[in-house]
């Protein structure tokens, strides 16, 4: 046996390498055959992996708007051709396009969400994820915010007990056990001010209200048709008190506010109309547009007042618009234009100090304001010169007192007017000499 051991060992080693060599040859044959078939040269250290075909694929997917796949193929092409400068540039450009498109669709989605157009919002968030698969905010909207919630958060105020909270939230103090159960708290211990509780939202049938909601809804709908907004509102509020998730009642409430807003707008009570529109949910259809329309009407009213030179009223109208819509540029422009107009009027009246006071209240960056301020200074200077020349004329006519008065007016408008100062001194000295002669 011992004599045979080296032979056995040699045989084992031989078989092992035969196995390796056999299989290796088999694989190499296949690879070479394929490489020859494709007539493509393999990059160093690899077997036949062409870069151009990946670039073509990237282009093809980019055309199909499958940008993530296109990006992947570009990365492969870049790895296979590390000396290329164009591929990293293309990757950077594609990454930037992906980011831009994702941001664009996400923003659209959020806007649709605000308008409660959830289907449209979902489509935008899905598109965001298609471009940017790890977009956390889009995932958050799709997975959480677009689903209805079983719980509603409630912040405990003062020394509220669970019974108080249950009465407030469920209109039924006996449901306090429910709050204790879902918040893992003892029913007899008050939760403490500021505690945030999770209250399961119950279907209305578990909170039977003392009113027949169905009948009340019909009543409210009829009242709305008769344009009796306030009464519609009262009933909708009553329904919502018992069933705060009642969509029809919410819609009726919003419709009533909208209807009352339109009535006030028709009566040209624009600020009141805006206040009414703002009581409706901002996402309620037509509210934003109605507010904009009223603002536009107010602007027209303001412009008419400006034509009539009723500046204080213009400021009041435009100020109201800015209260409702602080970023309204047209209202800002109207105020500044009114200041300019008022300033110009005061220039004509030669009331330069008042003109400057008015213009100092305006936005100094506003083009018209800048120009009018400059006009005030020019007019002042011009008027100072007129008074100076008048003074000269009086002086030549030997009307020294009148000359001094004109030059004093010059100095009032232009305190640094050297000639006026000098002439006043000369005229006064002459007057003194004349007095002595007399």
């Amino acid at each position, binding site marked *: 046996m011992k004599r045979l051991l080296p032979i056995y060992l040699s045989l084992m080693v031989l078989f092992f390498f035969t196995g390796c060599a056999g299989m290796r040859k088999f*694989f190499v044959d296949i690879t070479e055959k394929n490489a020859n078939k494709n007539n493509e040269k393999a990059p160093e250290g690899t077997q036949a992996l062409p870069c151009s075909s990946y670039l073509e694929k990237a282009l093809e997917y980019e055309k199909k708007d499958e940008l993530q796949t296109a990006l992947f193929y570009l990365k492969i092409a870049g790895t296979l051709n590390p000396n290329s400068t164009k591929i990293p540039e293309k990757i950077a450009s594609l990454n930037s396009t992906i980011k831009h498109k994702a941001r664009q669709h996400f923003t659209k989605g959020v806007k649709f969400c605000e308008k409660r157009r959830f289907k449209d919002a979902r489509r935008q968030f899905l598109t965001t994820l298609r471009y940017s698969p790890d977009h956390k905010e889009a995932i958050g909207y799709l997975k959480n915010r677009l689903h209805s919630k079983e719980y509603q958060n409630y912040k405990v105020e003062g020394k509220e007990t669970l019974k108080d909270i249950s009465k407030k939230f469920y209109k039924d103090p006996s449901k306090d056990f429910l709050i204790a159960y879902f918040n893992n708290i003892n029913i007899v211990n008050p939760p403490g001010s500021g505690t945030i509780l999770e209250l399961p939202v119950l279907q209305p049938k578990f909170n039977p209200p003392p009113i027949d909601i169905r009948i009340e809804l019909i009543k409210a709908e009829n009242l709305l048709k008769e344009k009796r907004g306030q009464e519609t509102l009262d009933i909708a509020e009553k329904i919502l008190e018992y069933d705060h998730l009642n969509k029809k009642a919410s819609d009726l409430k919003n419709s009533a506010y909208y209807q009352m807003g339109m009535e006030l707008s028709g009566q040209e009570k624009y600020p009141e109309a805006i206040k009414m529109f703002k009581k409706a949910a901002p996402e309620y259809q037509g509210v934003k547009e109605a507010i904009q329309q009223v603002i536009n009407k107010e602007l027209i009213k303001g412009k008419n007042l400006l034509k009539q030179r009723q500046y204080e009223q213009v400021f009041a109208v435009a100020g109201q618009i800015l209260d409702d819509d602080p970023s309204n540029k047209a209202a800002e422009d109207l105020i500044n234009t009114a200041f300019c107009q008022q300033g110009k009027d005061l220039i004509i009246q030669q009331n330069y100090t008042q003109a400057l006071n008015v213009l100092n209240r305006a936005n100094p960056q506003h083009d018209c304001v800048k120009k009018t301020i400059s006009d005030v200074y020019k007019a002042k200077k011009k008027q100072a010169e007129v008074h100076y020349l008048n003074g000269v004329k009086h002086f030549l006519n030997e009307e020294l007192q009148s000359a001094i008065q004109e030059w004093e007016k010059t100095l009032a408008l232009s305190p640094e007017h050297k000639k006026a100062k000098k002439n006043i001194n000369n005229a006064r000295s002459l007057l003194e000499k004349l007095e002595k002669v007399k």
Partner: protein
Amino acid sequence: MQQFVNRKKRIFDIILILSLLFLAACAITTRLYHKTSEIRIDDDFIIVKATAIDTFSSLAAEYLNDPSKGWLIAEFNHIKSLTSGQELCIPLFPFNKGGLKSGGFQTVPVLAYYGFSKNKASKISITQDDFKAQMKYLKENGYHVITLDQLLGFLDYREQIPEKSVAITFDDGWISVYDIAIPILKKYGFPATIFIYTDFIGGGKAMSWKQIKELSKAGFDIQCQTKTHRNLKVIKKKESFKEYFKSLEMEISYPKKVINKKLQKECKYLAYPYGKTNNLVIAMLKKHGYRAAFTVNQKSNPFFIDKYKINRTAIYGKYDIEKFRKELSVFQRMELK
């Protein structure tokens, strides 16, 4: 004579060892070959050339450490079979978790079956032949039957699943599921979940706990369908709210404990009896640690579905294969541009 026998045995041993060495060498060489021909891209992908002995499963086993993920390679490369020398990209991460494409998104049908019979179909009872035909259809048409855990991975936007994925569930715990459906599923190697209501188990037409345990050990997923199969959404006549609440708590907590105790497996999913639910039920499921729950709304599920309102498509007794095919919606068209 004894010496001759010993020598023969030794020669046999040597041949065996040498054969093993030969095979080991082959295996090592295959692996070495891949290692030398692969290119790794940013830890995200690997490019390889397929060899004659490669399959999607072998590549998935080698590069993804999971032979069942061969479909990931096939789908990424848009191919259905491998040819020797074919260049392949192997994605090392789920490249499309939500199944999103420019023309729409992936949906997963969850099939809900109830009872079975040898020959006679009724609304909720399917014949053996029809069930066989349905499973055969799934197999032959490239559908992947996934587990509910895989489905949840998809719904959580964590995992990618095959494009043509479908899940199979059975309600109640009928003995006919054990007798008729399970052998067919085993034949095709399909996983499935059985939602049981625990008061039913051990009854005349129901499975016994012994059979349930056997199925659980065989890899079938046993989940919960409450204790008594009451309609969780509806408060009964003359039942106070507090009584209703206590009943809900029992329906939801008791079967979970029983299943955990009997099978030593976690019960994390619930099928609503009659598919009905409300906010209170969902809040309670969450409190008791259920991860998802199933209705019987006849729709497929996109990844963004509410996990406590997962749709299931009930398959009724008189469905022919065409009607069955129509229920297998795996893609929802919608322009995502």
